[in-house]
């Protein structure tokens, strides 16, 4: 975010940047929050195209734009609809930050103040005006609800036509479920546990037909599941290329942000050393990661319980899923006045202030993490094969044992996917959650990044770049040490005939 502002708006200078630049910067930031959900949706949709359809298309000489128009676009349409809902949720989450932002310190303060609901909420939050913040939030929820009814619901119904199905799936509850939950379920079905879909649809067609098609379809579907193996199958040139791209981006960043503003990289590093030591950078990273771990643990605990309850009860699903749909779009910054009133102001002169600020930070990170886990778990639990459920009922496996031995292993791949997405959301939320205000912040990478923006321009660019590098390195280490290993383990927890 600060890099975009550095490049598009320039640093400080006292005079506000042209409104066009402000708009461009804001749109780029919304784009970064939106882009990845549809991208992964489209990849999932493309991966789900059955091999026989691809072979038939190639046999009929369909290539290029014709293949794209007649095979790829219809195939990705359902994925695109649900992932677009998630993308818009991500966009809404950040609008108060994108429409009302100050950069630099007086007298070189750059103020980005764009007219919008986000600005209304952000200004109310800054002034601790709870009533106005809540009013802005109500308007926002109204807009989200109207878009859901007028755009996503009709598109969701239309998307049903574009699903590849060899058999008619039971649709008794499909229209009553939210688009997001239905979309996540489709995502689970296609990317994480497509085998489950096959088993689930068994009821609706003759067993003979299934016996004929099962082996061939299972082979295709299990191939799609093996994405951890696909990672290891990346050829050497591919790995080298990815490292080259990463190093290139780092160098580009160095040139754009540091070299252009100070004499050399060495002088940038020595400038950084005047304000922060390497040990301090590691320490604040550790603090931020600790907060993320706590928020993740809390999110996993409640979403696992709630996800299982929602997936097992239609009544709860109808009641809670629309509420969660709206909840995932509520910006963290809209909760600032509430956090200040409940956790900051009453403890201003109390030794408990440090604890309550950390608690506030963890709660705000939680708002950016929990929904990914919840929707993934709901999708996975919904996809447990009926024959397995019948078998567990016959063997009287119930209660805690049923959850521990059936539901958690069944949703393990989905929990992993949700966890990776949740950590991504958590890193996003970290920047707004560690720095609520000048007198209400906790030490961490997010607050270091925010505070860097108000320093001397040369120091600010070096500190912003250093914190982004540390953040990227931390994410890469966590990916390599945790998620990749767990993804390989997830291969054990799939249903196979």
């Amino acid at each position, binding site marked *: 975010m600060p890099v975009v502002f550095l490049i598009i708006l320039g640093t400080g200078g006292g005079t506000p940047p042209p409104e066009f630049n402000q708009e461009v910067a804001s749109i780029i930031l919304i*784009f970064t929050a939106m882009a990845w959900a549809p991208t992964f949706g489209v990849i999932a949709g493309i991966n789900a195209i059955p091999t026989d359809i691809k072979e038939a298309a190639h046999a009929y000489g369909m290539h290029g734009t014709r293949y794209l128009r007649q095979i790829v676009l219809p195939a990705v349409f359902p994925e695109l609809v649900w992932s677009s809902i998630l*993308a*818009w949720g991500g966009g809404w989450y950040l609008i108060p930050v994108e429409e009302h932002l100050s950069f630099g310190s007086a007298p070189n303060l750059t103020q980005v103040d764009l007219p919008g609901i986000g600005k209304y909420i952000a200004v109310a939050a800054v002034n601790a005006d709870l*009533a106005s913040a809540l009013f802005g939030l109500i308007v926002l929820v109204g807009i989200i609800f109207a878009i859901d009814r007028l755009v996503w619901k009709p598109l969701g119904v239309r998307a049903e036509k574009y699903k590849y199905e060899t058999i008619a799936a039971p649709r008794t509850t499909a229209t009553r479920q939210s688009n997001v939950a239905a979309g996540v379920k489709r995502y689970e079905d296609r990317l994480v546990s497509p085998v489950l879909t096959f088993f689930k649809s068994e009821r609706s067609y003759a067993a003979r037909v299934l016996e004929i098609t099962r082996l061939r379809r299972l082979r295709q579907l299990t191939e799609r599941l093996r994405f951890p193996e696909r990672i290891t199958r990346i050829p050497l040139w591919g790995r080298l290329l990815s490292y080259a791209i990463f190093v290139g981006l780092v160098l580009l960043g160095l040139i754009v942000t540091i070299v252009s503003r100070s004499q050399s990289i060495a002088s940038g590093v020595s400038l950084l050393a005047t304000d922060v030591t390497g040990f301090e950078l590691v320490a604040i990273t550790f603090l931020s990661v600790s907060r993320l771990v706590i928020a993740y643990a809390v999110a996993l605990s409640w979403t696992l319980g709630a996800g299982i309850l929602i997936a097992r009860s239609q009544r709860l699903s109808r009641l809670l899923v629309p509420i969660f749909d709206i909840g995932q779009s509520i910006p963290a910054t809209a909760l600032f006045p509430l956090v200040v009133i409940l956790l900051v102001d009453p403890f201003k002169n109390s030794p408990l202030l440090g604890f309550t600020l950390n608690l506030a930070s963890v709660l705000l990170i939680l708002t950016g993490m929990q929904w990914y886990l919840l929707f993934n778990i709901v999708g996975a639990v919904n996809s447990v094969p009926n024959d397995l459920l019948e078998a567990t009922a016959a063997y009287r496996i119930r209660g805690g044992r049923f959850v521990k031995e059936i539901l958690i292993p069944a949703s393990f791949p989905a929990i992993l996917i949700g966890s990776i997405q949740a950590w991504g959301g958590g890193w996003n939320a970290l920047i707004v959650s560690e720095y609520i205000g000048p007198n209400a912040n906790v030490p961490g990478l997010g607050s270091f990044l925010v505070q860097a923006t108000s320093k001397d321009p040369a120091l600010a660019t070096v500190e912003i770049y250093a914190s982004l590098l540390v953040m990227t390195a931390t994410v890469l280490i966590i990916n390599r040490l945790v998620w990749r290993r767990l993804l390989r383990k997830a291969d054990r927890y799939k249903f196979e005939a």
Partner: protein
Amino acid sequence: MRILGGIAIVVVSLLAIDAYINGALDTVTSNTLTPSIPYFAFRTLTRMTIAYAFALAFALTYSCPCSTYSSQSQFSV
């Protein structure tokens, strides 16, 4: 669900009336930005729609070559 929704609307309406009578909404009505809310909504929606159009274009441009070249698909994962 509908009954609960109706109850929620009634409760929120009653709370809003109570807040209005007791002056809790004074800050909202005296907020100089409040009359601009419809315009703000329009501007935010426009911004979101433009960003979404770019996100959609990016998603299709980045992902669709994967359908043609399997090596790119592996690389993207």
